[in-house]
């Protein structure tokens, strides 16, 4: 197991280096930059030149890359080029916990609701419960979250006035963003569990379990669920990464001060250091989540443990 984890960490490090390098050079390959004349019309060319030199942007790209990597090795992501007086580390440290909070809540909600719903749908296949959950799942997948967000805002904030439309800090501010974020994952998890459960209950070992005289609770709760949950485990890794690192649309609409906005704003602002910082952060986060999923997988399925 330790060997397996070590190997995975080594692979992750290589992937990270690749990710950083490719992003860095692609970013610089796009015409323009944070302090190009087109961006800053009110500044004189000489001033722009001075600013560019201040940020080291006048150096050859390879030199810039070397400098960036040197700083990165010390854990320094640099200073934001557009948000003055902020380092990228500060931006991430300030916004990530906010996104992580609602993201984690959404993941937990999705699992708590999605798994039982999928199991019930599979066991009562063809029943009304199955139909209803499948219709809901299809709706959950097909309607974009920002549409749902607007509908919920209209209903709960405008008509019923149960929740504030925006703001941050109290429980009432959490609810609608979390609901919006967890709907699509609930739908996905329900469908995943349903189809894998339908597959599992047909397996020979389920027949064996029944032939041993086990109760239906044991047959489903012990023998079937553990097998049926595997696809969900695979799905949850990237899900955790994407939800915890924030959603641009949802955070924008509910004015959540999370990390999501930097994904989009940094690119349109040509804020090189923030682009890099967010990319590295997200990449590392996904890799950690995937590693955790693989460990969880090996923990659930002994067959994985022994494959070299």
């Amino acid at each position: 197991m330790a060997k397996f984890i070590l190997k995975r960490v080594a692979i992750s490090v290589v992937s990270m280096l690749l990710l950083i390098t490719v992003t860095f050079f692609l970013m610089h390959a796009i015409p323009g930059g944070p302090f190009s004349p087109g961006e800053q019309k009110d500044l004189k060319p000489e001033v722009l030149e001075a600013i560019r030199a201040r940020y080291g942007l006048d150096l050859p790209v390879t030199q810039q890359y070397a400098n960036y990597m040197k700083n990165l090795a010390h854990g320094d992501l640099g200073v934001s080029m557009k948000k003055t007086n902020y380092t990228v580390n500060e931006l991430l440290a300030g916004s990530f916990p906010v996104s992580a909070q609602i993201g984690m809540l959404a993941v937990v909600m999705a699992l708590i609701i999605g798994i039982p719903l999928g199991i019930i749908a599979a066991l009562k296949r063809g029943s009304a419960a199955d139909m209803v959950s499948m219709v809901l799942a299809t709706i959950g997948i097909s309607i974009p979250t920002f549409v749902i967000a607007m509908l919920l805002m209209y209903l709960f904030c405008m008509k019923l006035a149960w929740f504030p439309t925006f703001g941050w800090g109290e429980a009432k501010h959490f609810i609608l963003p979390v609901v919006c974020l967890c709907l699509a994952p609930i739908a996905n998890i329900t469908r995943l569990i349903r189809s894998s459960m339908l597959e599992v209950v047909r397996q020979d070992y389920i027949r064996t379990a029944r032939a041993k005289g086990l109760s239906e609770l044991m047959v489903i709760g012990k023998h079937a669920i553990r097998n049926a949950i595997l696809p969900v485990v695979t799905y949850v890794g990237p899900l955790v990464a994407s939800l915890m690192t924030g959603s641009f649309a949802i955070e924008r609409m509910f004015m959540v001060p999370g990390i999501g906005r930097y994904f989009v704003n940094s690119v349109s602002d040509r804020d090189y250091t923030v682009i890099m910082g967010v990319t590295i952060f997200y990449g590392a986060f996904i890799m950690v989540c995937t590693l955790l999923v693989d460990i969880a997988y090996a923990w659930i399925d002994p067959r994985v443990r022994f494959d070299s």
Partner: protein
Amino acid sequence: MSNHLLEVKNLRTHFASGGGIVQAVRGVDIHVDAGEFLGIVGESGCGKSVTMMSIMRLLAENAAVKADSLVFDGRDILSQSEKTMRSIRGNEIGMIFQDPMTSLNPLFTVGNQMMEHLRLHKNMTKEQAKARAIEMLTTVGINEPEKRLKQYPHEMSGGMRQRVMIAIAMCCNPKILIADEPTTALDVTIQAQIMELMEDLKNNFSTAVILITHDLGVIARSCSRVIVMYGGLIMEEGSVEQIFYEPAHPYTEGLLRSVPRHGIEEEDSESQDKGGEAQTVERQREKLIPIPGSPPDLMNPPAGCPFAARCEKAMKICKMAPAQLTEVGEGHRSACWLLHSQAPGKDRER
């Protein structure tokens, strides 16, 4: 009424499927006595497995099981509560299945899967169940049982897994062991070992065994009594000797003609060694004669004998009504119109 351990009368099992009703079992009588080794033989889809699953009440919800009587150990199976059925399954009737590679849950250790129903049925503590599991693994011929208990199914070979399945089925000391094609998925040497093991267990535990198979070789080797099924009906029933030496149904005859006899093959290979090709060609090999055609569609079962369409001796009556099981010897019954008193060629009668 009777003192059979298991008595089934006129069992009918139908499945509702998308295209209509499949009449998988269409009136089958079976009885099993304590300690008996009964073989049920027939080709795929003849209803032999469904019969067993009906007895265990393990079929899916789309199955309807009816019987004039279905009595196990003095209890009417069809009227028992699901709870009572659970206390019978795995406890009083053990069952093993065709494919040992898929019959064990891959995510739980062998020990876990052996002990869970011991603890359930016999109220054993974990330690007692473990001791019993180790004892059973030793009985079925698995070395280092303590170590094996901690292993997962994928760490074992097919033969070993089938041994584990047998140990699971036998560890509550059932009165009947139902073995549904236990050797089909195994290679020949392992098959022989597993059959040997089942015979030993039958002798040591005085458990009745119902062996379902399409392999006549396996039947000949182990069983005392044989039931031949076809198209959801019993075609012939008798002792192993009666079935193999005096088959009274054209289907049984056809089955016997379609299996190789090992003795003759061996002679052949000897002659090859000595005399070269010419001699071998001259030498009359026993031909395997397949039964032409395919089994009947049980969604629209034929009105007459299900085998009539493939039977070379079929008469007009065969396609019109099914033949009743007729006594042809002691404990030997066959459902064939040729045995009727008005049938032509009654001189073939014994």
